[in-house]
């Protein structure tokens, strides 16, 4: 994989965030290059979901820097070198290039599967109906929902809803895709169909940051795994390096707990 700085999609430096007195991110540094699939694991409360939500500013951050494709996400420089929070319009531009898929799907319940995917294409990308429709149908077909274009979310299974959620995010052609525990709310027999879609996206070179508890999936799809604990990245490396977990007590304990939950 090329390591030139031009291929850097996400660059995070010294990221800190507190909820009240509780520090959830305590100095995170992370580089994600084009085509990488970075899987973040760690116990609940370790800050992994907050990290993900900071990248498209669903959460603000207190200190440090997040750059997506070279653009600082949370702030712009005001005269005098002061950082000012970005306004709604600027943020919308930045967010349009960052896809996100949610644990609870968050599909728009008043819109059909196709309309869910079309909304951003129409209103944010400004495409004409015919073009937006073509792209939406193309992506819904790719995630295996060619027969569900006109279904409302309430008429779809959890796995189908989440695949619409993925189509909605990737149809915008994002520079990076954030997946936030996207199978945690699914019945076990529906997890596979969603993860298969993600694996195909990975194969096609989609840059992704994935928070998950599915270790088998992490091993199969990740180019790199990060283990977070206490608001910091404790260990990172290839799946083999991290999951064999030699010599890191907290990681070993975490993996043992996960193992127990699944058997």
């Amino acid at each position, binding site marked *: 994989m090329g390591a030139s700085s031009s291929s850097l999609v996400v660059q995070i430096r010294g990221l800190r965030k507190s909820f009240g007195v509780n520090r959830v991110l305590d100095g995170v540094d992370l580089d994600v290059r084009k085509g990488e699939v970075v899987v973040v694991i760690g116990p609940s409360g370790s800050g992994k979901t907050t990290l993900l939500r900071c990248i*498209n500013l*669903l959460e603000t951050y207190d200190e440090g820097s997040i750059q997506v494709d070279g653009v600082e996400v949370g702030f712009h420089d005001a005269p005098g070198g002061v950082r000012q929070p970005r306004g*709604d*319009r600027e*943020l*919308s*531009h930045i*967010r*349009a*290039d*960052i*896809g*996100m898929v*949610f644990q*609870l799907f*968050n*599909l*728009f*319940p*008043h819109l059909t599967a196709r309309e869910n995917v079309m*909304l*951003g294409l129409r*209103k*944010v990308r400004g495409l004409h109906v015919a073009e937006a429709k073509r792209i939406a149908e193309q992506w819904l077909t790719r995630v295996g929902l060619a027969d569900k274009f006109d279904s*409302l979310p*309430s008429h779809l299974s959890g796995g189908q809803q989440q695949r619409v959620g993925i189509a*909605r*995010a990737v149809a*915008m052609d994002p520079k990076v895709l954030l997946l936030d525990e996207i199978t945690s709310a699914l019945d076990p027999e529906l997890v596979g169909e969603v993860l298969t879609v993600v694996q195909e996206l990975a194969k096609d070179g989609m840059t992704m940051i994935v928070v998950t508890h599915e270790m088998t999936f992490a091993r199969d799809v990740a180019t790199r795994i990060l283990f977070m604990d206490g608001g910091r990245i404790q260990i990172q490396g290839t799946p083999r390096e991290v999951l064999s977990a030699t010599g890191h007590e907290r990681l070993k304990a975490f993996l043992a707990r996960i193992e127990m939950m699944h058997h």
Partner: protein
Amino acid sequence: MLYAIQSLPFLWKGLLITLEVSALVVFLSLIAGVILGVGIVYGPRWLYWPIRIYSDFLRGIPLLVLIFFIYYALPLIGLNFTNIMSVVVALSAFESAHIIEVVRGAIQSIHRGQNEAAKAIGLRFTQRLLYVIAPQAIRRFLPPWINAVVDTVKGSALVSLVGIVDLTLAIQQVIGRTYVPMPLYILGAIMYFVINYILSSASRVLEARFAYIRE
């Protein structure tokens, strides 16, 4: 009974006043209530307390006191309203205070994730409101709002207290001349009922139209 029929054109004029006042109040209170309701949910912090106080205060005083205050007290500080405008302003302010709460409740009933998903695909604030929040909130907004509209039609009878001949005062004036109260009161009641029955029927049709969300 004959008196009642002979008085119909007169009552009709009163009915038109009732409808005009009601329509004006429904329109004004909807605009003000929705803007302030959206403001109290999404607005900056400095906006919260003024709206909160406005809403709580107006809901906490009797409508009649509000009307008399605007009609009799405000002229003392140089604010003159015609009798009909003072009632329209009072009713609009009163109803808008209720609509603020209805809007707030309707928006807050929508899961936080909806707004987040809308943000994540890059929709701006007004787009999120227009394409994601409003279409879902409207279903919770409609039933209490139609109630407020029905209250407005009934509340508009208070204009008779500052000398405007609406349906209520027209009925009383006819009774004053004819001394046959019963048929006229019944006729008046039927007229009010027909208006409000049409409104609540429309409400049921609209609710069915927006019932796309499985709970």
